[in-house]
């Protein structure tokens, strides 16, 4: 279904038409700009621009809005897992300023008077969204499951916040970094590529999900010069057991999680301490690596895209990246995009010294 949506999601209208309407208010004349944005369900919404009040019902969106330096516009919403440790470091005010709306109560959202609501596209037919639309609140449905969708989302945010040039700068930076990694990994022959299992903690003891099909983590591993063992599974989160892992018997396991309360390093510890995994190649040879986590996991499509890509490539092929200092890049990205020093951010994970 999701692939279906992606197939049918129409390419964004590049430079949305700006329509100026003159309205007489007393003696003054105010110009209201309207931007029209086509979302991932193919619907077009007209948004007041520049937007001042944003509501997000999609955890991947707040980090991206902060990437655009517009975090103070978020009036309601939380990031993935609602933990938001990274955003807290960038902007301690976030949690007090932005309401935590767990449900999409129409009246509550309407009373916040948002210029735009970002919501996940798989929810487009559910809940209060149809009602919200009828109340004249623009709802933009977004799907960030694949790299190309992430790029489209960046472009869209550029239009919404009238920062098209910056959006283009980001995309150029992503492309350039991706090409750099791909160039290095292009020389690796198929049988030199390690077989990698990507595990995400599933909030239940000894229970993990692994990405299927087109989920981004599979693409990440492929780009970084590895072979992902779980790509044959249907797209989505697949809860696997140890036996399935044993039948794949991967060379490398990468662990991931989404909150400091239970970060990827803890998941790695669990696997190393669980008798059930001890005979699997990756565990036996000590090739279990914790995905860096700074309040956002680097394997999600978001502001840490480039960091996650370089880290994965260096983890799978350390000999090819001996010249590469991941911590230096991290520090410069923090300064450049978020205006925050690396000392203010809690960062855990392997291979980041």
């Amino acid at each position, binding site marked *: 279904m999701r692939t279906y949506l992606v197939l049918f999601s129409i390419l964004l209208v590049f430079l949305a038409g700006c329509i100026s309407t003159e309205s007489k208010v007393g003696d003054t004349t105010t110009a209201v700009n309207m931007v029209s944005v086509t979302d991932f369900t193919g619907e077009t919404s007209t948004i007041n621009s520049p937007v001042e009040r944003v509501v997000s019902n999609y955890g991947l969106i707040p980090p991206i809005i902060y990437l655009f330096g517009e975090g103070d516009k978020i009036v309601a919403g939380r990031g993935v897992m609602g933990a938001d440790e990274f955003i807290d470091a960038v902007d301690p005010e976030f949690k007090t300023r932005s309401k935590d709306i767990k449900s999409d109560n129409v009246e509550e959202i309407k009373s916040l008077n948002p210029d735009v609501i970002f919501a996940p596209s798989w929810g487009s037919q559910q809940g209060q969204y149809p009602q919200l639309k009828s109340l004249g609140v623009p709802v933009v449905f977004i799907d960030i499951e694949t790299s190309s969708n992430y790029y489209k989302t960046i472009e869209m945010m550029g239009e919404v916040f009238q920062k098209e040039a910056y959006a283009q700068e980001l995309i150029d930076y992503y492309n350039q970094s991706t090409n750099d990694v791909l160039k290095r990994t292009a020389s690796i022959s198929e049988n030199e590529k390690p077989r990698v299992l990507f595990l995400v903690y599933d909030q*239940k*003891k000894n229970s993990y999900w692994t990405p299927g099909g087109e989920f981004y983590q599979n693409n990440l591993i492929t780009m970084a010069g590895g072979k992902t063992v779980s790509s044959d599974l249907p797209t989505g989160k697949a809860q696997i057991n*140890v036996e399935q892992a044993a039948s794949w018997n991967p060379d490398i396991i990468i662990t991931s999680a989404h909150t400091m309360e239970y970060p990827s390093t803890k998941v790695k510890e669990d696997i190393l301490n669980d008798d059930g995994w001890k005979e699997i190649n990756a565990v036996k040879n000590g090739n279990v690596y914790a995905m860096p986590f700074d309040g956002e996991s680097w394997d999600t499509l978001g502001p840490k895209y480039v960091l996650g890509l370089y880290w994965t490539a260096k983890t799978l092929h350390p000999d090819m990246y001996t010249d590469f200092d991941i911590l230096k890049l991290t520090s410069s990205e923090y300064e450049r995009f978020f205006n925050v020093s690396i000392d203010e951010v809690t960062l855990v994970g392997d291979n980041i010294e």
Partner: protein
Amino acid sequence: MIILNKNYVFPFLFAGVFLFSLFVGRYMFDPSLIFTNSLANNIFFDIRLPRAIAVSLAGASLALAGVSFQNIFKNYLAGPNILGVTSGSAFGASIAILFFAYNPYLVQFSAFIFGVIAVYIAYKLSSLLKSGIVGLILSGMAISAFFSAMIGLIKYVADPYEKLPTIVFWLLGSFVGLRWVDLGISVIPMLIGIIGLVMLKWVFNILATGDENAKSLGVDSKKLKNITIFLATLAASASTSLAGMIQWVGVVSPHIARLLVGVDNRKLVPASAFVGATLLLLCDTLARTLTPSEIPISIITSFIGAPILIIILSKRGVK
């Protein structure tokens, strides 16, 4: 010939299915490698064996809770949840996931405690109603509905990306990731429940004759009913805290057992325990083997259990 005696069919069947389940899984190996190949040895002894034991105990617990409640309430459609024990457990797990998602033992403990609390409230409530068994069923229904509503509320406020799928998975049950260490915690209440209820098998026959009769035989029926409810709650709550909500097994197993051994509780109670264990083992083997990802156990038990119940009841008629 011992096998031809139908009293021994269920234990033998159980033993067969238990062995079979140990040799089936996503990772297939030659059975002769168990002691020579370390990976096969590891999968067999550290993964499959504790899981098969846990599944057997949970299946027996649920079936015994089912047969006990069917006896006490004289209702052939009663299941372990008639007094709200599994709804209570599921609520306990959900609330722990919501507030302390990162402590698995707390989730398990909370599930167990709330299962017991739910039944305790139902029991106290029924003594206010003063209408005996009917009052108990009514208050059980009310408590069950209350906790289901609370679960609904938790689902409504849970984080849709991570916590909600976990809670939903919990409500459908799964034995994934079960190791010896997890077994150690839950095995005690399950064993107390199982052994206790099997020892009480003769009591159910006396209870079935009515309270007056029981009194004339020198049996304190009220006290025995309370003990039965307590033991059934202990077992059902512990199995729910181990693997989440498991539907149908508790209701269906006693019916399958009745088909073969009849309604005499002295035979029916142990037979039900073996049927429950066997049925859940089969379902769990399918759940972990059919696809690369684990299938929630209640999906399988409902697929298998519901039709069996319909077939049995339509053949025999609901007495």
